[in-house]
């Protein structure tokens, strides 16, 4: 599929029909909504079938799923770097690097014309993020239109868009082998737990996503639109001592307040002996991924974002 013949709002961007779509679950083996949905659909795919569309549900990290851990050797969702994808070493390579190469063969190669059109990567978070779509490029009109469609179809329930285009904080995800990678992050849900409300929400947003692709493939034109996104700015770590141990926790006023404004001077962390540490930034930010379990080891208590409105040109099948 081409990148679209024009990014000009006045012109309609043409994309080839999206014929090959994958749904990834278990990229983190203890994020249960995706694991469960993909297992269900591998047994019976009736619910996800759409005419003229090949939709492949796929468990990306089966060893991690079996052990119900995030990863075995290394985080699969950080493993799709060019260096890893071209590494030699076969069985000697960390398990997830081998998996990344396998996934790149099956669904990529990343960056090539043969790559899958769309990959949905299903994730859960312990953060109170609700339903979040993760966008990797502000210039992907197809993805922007899809996310606009999903948000409107899901309303009045909320589905927000997180844009991670930050040159340093952006990472090489499993979905990045596709031409149009879409992250779906639903929380809060503890690792290893399956909650029915979270499960159903993910099922529904995925249904809307597949409906969009179907409509697009049938020739529907989607007029120009704007999409509100939250753009990743900065990673904020816990305060730590000289040995790297955390010395404070996310403050009760910030805990569970994903997407709400954090103003300069607002409480941000609370030390174990009860003192507050305040946000020292110069302007209001919108924090998210607040207190995600998996990020303690990645030195992240939360990320800050700013609100932006992105414009997407009209799109239509070529």
């Amino acid at each position, binding site marked *: 599929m081409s990148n679209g013949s024009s990014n000009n709002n006045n012109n309609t961007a043409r994309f080839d029909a999206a014929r090959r779509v994958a749904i990834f679950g278990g990229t983190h083996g203890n994020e249960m909504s995706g694991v*469960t949905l993909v297992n*269900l659909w591998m047994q019976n795919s009736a619910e996800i079938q759409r005419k003229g569309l090949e939709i492949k549900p796929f468990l990306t990290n089966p060893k991690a799923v079996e052990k*119900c851990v995030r990863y075995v050797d290394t985080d699969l969702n950080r493993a799709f770097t060019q260096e890893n994808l071209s590494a030699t070493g076969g069985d000697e390579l960390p398990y997830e690097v081998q998996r990344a190469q396998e996934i790149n063969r099956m669904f990529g190669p990343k960056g090539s014309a043969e790559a899958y059109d769309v990959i949905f990567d299903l994730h859960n978070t*312990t953060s109170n993020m609700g339903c979040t779509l993760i966008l990797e490029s502000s210039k992907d009109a197809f993805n922007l239109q899809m996310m606009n469609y999903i948000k409107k179809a899901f309303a009045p329930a909320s589905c927000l868009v997180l844009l991670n285009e930050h040159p340093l904080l952006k990472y090489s995800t499993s979905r990045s082998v596709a031409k149009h990678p879409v992250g779906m992050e639903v929380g*809060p*849900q*503890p*690792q*290893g*737990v*399956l*909650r*029915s*409300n979270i*499960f159903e929400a993910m099922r529904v947003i995925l249904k809307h996503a597949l409906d969009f692709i179907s409509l697009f493939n049938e020739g529907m034109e989607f007029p120009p639109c704007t999409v509100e996104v939250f753009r990743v700015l900065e990673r904020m770590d816990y305060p730590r001592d000289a040995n790297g*141990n*955390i010395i404070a*926790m*996310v*403050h*009760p006023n910030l*805990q569970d307040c994903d997407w709400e404004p954090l103003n300069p001077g607002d409480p941000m962390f*609370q030390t*174990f*002996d*009860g003192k507050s540490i305040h946000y020292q930034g110069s302007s209001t930010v919108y924090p998210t991924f607040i*207190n995600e*379990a*998996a990020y*303690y*080891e990645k030195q992240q208590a939360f990320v800050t974002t700013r609100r932006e409105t992105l414009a997407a040109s009209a799109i239509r099948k070529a």
Partner: protein
Amino acid sequence: MVDRAENSQMQRTFVPPIYNVTICGGTHGNELTGVYIVREMQKQKMEKAGSVSVTTVETNPRAVAAGRRYTEMDLNRCFTDVLLSSPITESTPYEVKRAQELNAQLGPKGSAKAVDLLIDLHNTTSNMGLCFIFYSIDWITLHIYKYIENNLNSVPVRAIQLDIPSSEAYSLESVGKHGFAIEVGPQPSGVLRADIFNVVKEALDLTLQWLQKFSSGHSFEGGTVDAYTFVKSVDYPRDSAGKATAIIHQDLQDNDFKLLRSGDPIFQTFSGDILKYEGEDLYPFFVNECAYYEKKIAFHLAQKKTYSFPHISVKND
């Protein structure tokens, strides 16, 4: 001590002193409140509460370092008499060895040398608020529970009793002469919530306060406690391959301790059917506790029983 006429019907009991208390965290390595409470108490050198000496122990440091519940076997199932006396070989799981070490350090279980009071800190993914979990109906435990119930207002406080004889009691707190677990949720494994940390810290401060008052001769009024007594557990419905075919129904999810009656929905299958509870009215708890999937438990069920306990004060030799 004044003999109050209106309480003269209640027996007054004199109880041996509590000289020491041991607070344990990290028995499950991914239940973080206990880990950080213990570390903070060690940093603050919390070694005495009045005349009561205070010890803190991180009980499963390997599991804590790995961010896992356990490395080879659930440590909090290793304290039965059988496991505590089993011979150690090369194939003995780490946690069995660790349990025997802890028993030597804090016990031996059932002996006069055991610590007077052992409190083990836990978290659950279930919406259980703060729970005291104990085996036997013990006046010290019930009084401390009552004191916390009366003074802690930020979360619901409840008591859970497991009717298991001491020899078969499998968890760490059974090692102390008196012991109970403080279980607080909901908190995801691997997450440290400040609100939960603050509640547990408050509960421990109240416990130490009570112990100091008790040790200094204060008399505590008797009363009653409504405790949830474990009856049975319910597993997920499974297919012939042993895979769960349903999720906890949204009406039951997060409704720990809300009375369950016949006809109430408990599971929702992946194909959308609702499965209903059939049986006597009971109280569910540990609803959708992450660690219990592998133990084949979707939730536990309990009866509520009222226990009375007497006035107590410390027995002076």
